């Protein structure tokens, strides 16, 4: 039974990949990094990228589960100094 993973991109990363989100069906266990590579073969994952699984910060090698929402975004920047 394939797993369904929802993917979201924010800010400059959203503009870079040209989409705000994706869906991916995974036949085997994937890490966050695997998800990126499957969806963005021609865009290398930026060094300083941040990742969240289900709205909590996660590591690039964290495993993704069925129904998870995975988000990729650049370092956060508030609106003031």
């Amino acid at each position, binding site marked *: 039974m394939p797993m369904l993973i929802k993917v979201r991109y*924010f*800010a400059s990363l959203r503009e870079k990949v040209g989409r705000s989100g994706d869906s991916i069906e995974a036949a085997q266990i994937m890490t966050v990094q695997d998800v990126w590579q499957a969806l963005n073969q021609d865009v290398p994952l930026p060094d300083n990228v941040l990742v969240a699984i289900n709205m909590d910060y996660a590591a690039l090698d964290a495993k993704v589960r069925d129904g998870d929402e995975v988000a990729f975004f650049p370092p*956060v920047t*508030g*609106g003031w*100094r």
Partner: protein
Amino acid sequence: MSIKICSEDFDPFQAIQDHQQAKSAMVGKYGATSIFIGTMRDFNNDRSVQGMTLEYYPGMTERQLEEIVRHAQQQWCLIETLVVHRVGDISPNTPIVLVAVWSVHRGDAFDACRDIMEALKSRAPFWKKERLLSQQSHWVESNSDGYS
């Protein structure tokens, strides 16, 4: 604890007073209120900034702000905390962020207010895109450190 994300301009002083009125159990209990307001300036690194857009991650942003405030509540003795953050298109001279902390003693309010601001700056998912007078716009890639 109250966490608010606003897509319209907000009045920080009204927000504080509304919160004090809503939480009537606070009356007479707090001796110290420490408040920080972050406001959009009209200049930045010598280039004239016309405005900016603040993107966020609905759901995650609120959750992270709650986590930050909860962590502060565990570290210091706080009576109430209010965080309001603006998102969307923002004009210069407009409030962007408000943190208000009420406590019995001033040390707790000062420390917690500052800690929340620093944590918010590094962990809350907001991304800033500046629009310059030249009509160019660009994503701002890093924050300055408030302690330096």
